[in-house]
């Protein structure tokens, strides 16, 4: 069953087309990953789903209803730019945020205390958020997102800036929510998390959805055109290979994406001449590889240059 239906949406800011004719469906009870480089239009799309921005064209329906203040209550949203009122006490603040999502005071209090207990945070209720450590306030932020028990959870770059403990905790929460039949949509540019967690993906580039589907199917469609190679010895032979792309290379390991259909046995032969082979495996490409080959390496390099300080 489709719970979020996005159809031909467009959004421009001045001359900049942030989102350009994007359509996708999110199925109920699944984890949906929105991937893409920075500036690809993920956040704008997420804001439109949350009814913070309206699309210039196209339509978004949540549970069959056009995105509106009513559908906002069905969603728990944690934006990339996270924050809380520093001068407000934890409990007051959570109460305010959950009431804004339409919860009654009593039910809101119960939910807040349940989650504070689960995160061992019951002692903080009377503390101001400004007094809490970063990790602690991240936990409060999670509670603010999920306490009103919505059907849909949207996290924009949820793992950026999280410490490892909270990062694992959020992963567990997401899995738990999924097991309870909830729907999760999150955006990220970190592929390993998507591979670990997502059922479905949609890849954004320059405002367009360039690739989408079930993660398994997307990967299978690329075929087993990648080699996992483990070896011992001089790895410089890898530089002699032509028509390949090396991902994840280290002193005794390489992930080799074979381009233009050349014979993989030739690569094995070359490798055996130069090093002792421990493992040679044909696999589906990693999501990172899919990401690079779809978006294009040049595009990504430009992106990294922009990001560099």
């Amino acid at each position, binding site marked *: 069953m489709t719970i979020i239906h996005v159809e031909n949406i467009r959004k421009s*800011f*001045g001359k900049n087309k942030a989102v350009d004719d994007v359509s996708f469906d999110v199925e109920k009870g699944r984890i949906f990953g929105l991937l893409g480089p920075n500036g690809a239009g993920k956040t704008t799309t997420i*804001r439109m789903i*949350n*009814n*913070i*921005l309206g699309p210039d064209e196209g339509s978004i329906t949540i549970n069959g209803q056009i995105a509106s*203040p009513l559908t*906002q*209550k069905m*969603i728990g*949203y*944690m*934006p990339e*730019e*996270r*924050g*809380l*009122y*520093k*001068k*407000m006490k934890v409990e007051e603040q959570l109460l*305010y*945020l959950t*009431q*804004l*999502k339409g919860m009654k005071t009593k039910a809101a209090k119960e939910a807040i205390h349940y989650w504070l207990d689960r995160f061992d945070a019951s002692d903080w209720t009377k503390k101001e958020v400004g007094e809490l450590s970063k990790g602690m306030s991240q936990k409060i932020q999670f509670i*603010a997102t999920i306490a009103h028990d919505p059907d849909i959870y949207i996290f924009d770059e949820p793992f950026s800036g999280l410490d490892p403990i909270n990062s694992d905790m959020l992963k567990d929460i997401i899995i738990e929510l999924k097991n309870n039949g909830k729907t999760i949509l999150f955006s990220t540019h970190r592929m390993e998390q998507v591979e670990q967690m997502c059922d479905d993906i949609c890849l954004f580039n320059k405002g367009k959805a360039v690739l989408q589907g079930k993660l398994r199917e997307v990967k299978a469609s690329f075929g087993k055109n990648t080699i996992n190679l483990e070896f011992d010895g001089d790895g410089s032979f890898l530089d002699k290979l032509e028509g390949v792309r090396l991902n994840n290379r280290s002193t005794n390991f390489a992930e080799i994406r074979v381009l233009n259909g050349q014979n993989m046995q030739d690569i094995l032969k070359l490798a055996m001449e130069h090093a002792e082979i421990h493992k040679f495996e044909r696999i589906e490409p990693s999501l990172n590889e899919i990401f690079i080959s779809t978006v294009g390496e040049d595009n990504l390099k430009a992106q990294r240059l922009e990001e560099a300080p």
Partner: protein
Amino acid sequence: MDFSKILLVLKREYFTRAKSKSFILSTILTPLVLIGFGAFMVWIMTSETETDKSVGVYDQTGVLVENLIALDSVRYSNVSDLPIDTVKAMVLREDLDAYLLLEEKHIETNENAELIYGGSGGLAFSSSVRGDIRDVIQEERLSRANVSDEVKELFARRPGLDSRKLTAEGEAEDDKAGFMSGVGFVLGLLIFIGLFGYGAVLMRSVIEEKTNRIVEVITSSLKPIELLIGKVAGVCLLGFTQFTVWAVMYIGISMAAVPIAGVLMQDQISEMADTQDIEQVAAEAGFDPASLEVLSIDPMIFVYFFLFFVLGFFMYAALFAAVGSAVDSEQDTQQFMPILMVPLMGAYILNTRIMVDPDSTLAVVASMFPLTSPINMITRIATTDVPVWQIGASLALLVASFFGVMWVSAKIYRVGILMYGKKASFGDFAKWIRQS
């Protein structure tokens, strides 16, 4: 528009601020600072600024100098017997501050006498000497003209003017124009302070939500316009709380002041009561019931004060919020502040004219123009009888421009609150208004 959400925002905005230490402190301290400032001003006005200056009188008429010395023996001294060069030398040596050159022609013709001073003169000094000279010369002229004592007395008397106001009942009541123009100015000043002070509070609150990065979480739960209205109303209510506390403090202090003053005067009164009528004593002590009548203020003025403050605040608050939404920090507001400062300061400066001349064309225009009317109209209402149609038109214009300003500001606000790390310009404002 979801009013339950607006109410939630309002409550949060109001209570987190009303409970804050800075609010409680400013509520208590502001009147004390104002009283202190007022006392300081009174002290400055009443303190003797005139220093004793010595003036040598070089009098060739031989009649004026005696009268001058009789008038002020500390200031004036007779130097008529010394050579004029010696007198000049004394002034240069600062033995004298100045010398006066008086001749027959100053009595007989209209030629002005001359005051020649060394070091520094000062306006107050020369005008006080001028007054003395006028008195002395006039007296001499009168005595030379050989007029009767009656005529002399006529000259000594100064005609005065008492003003009374004609009311609808046809009875003249005691004039309180002076008092009411003071009240009008103070009410205008209060609105000025309120618009500016609470506008700034709201602006800071908007910036705070942006820098805390909470605003995106909030806007995933309600419309920006609902957030804006809730915040404006919350801060407005905060302003009322503060005004109410101050009013109660003022009434409390003045009520406490009467018994205290009474106790202080008790001794005097009981002493005098032996010999005199109590009523007379009371009258002498200044307890004239009629004087309280003069000081009473028409309650309708407070209704208008309320109306103009609320409408004015909502309009200015929308502008302050728009500015706040467009910046990342308070420092960045500098470039936009003139839009808010110029009309507010202008209205305040105009008010000093309007309180003395409330029916001039300037006053009428300023009390109609929506950006200045909240401040200028209340001063006019207190000071003069403003035609009802003018008040009505002023309110209507204010309401209309409030909606206009709110509409534009809400558009800027909607886009601005989600913009990070970019300094907005006026050009961006125009773009955002068109965009949303």
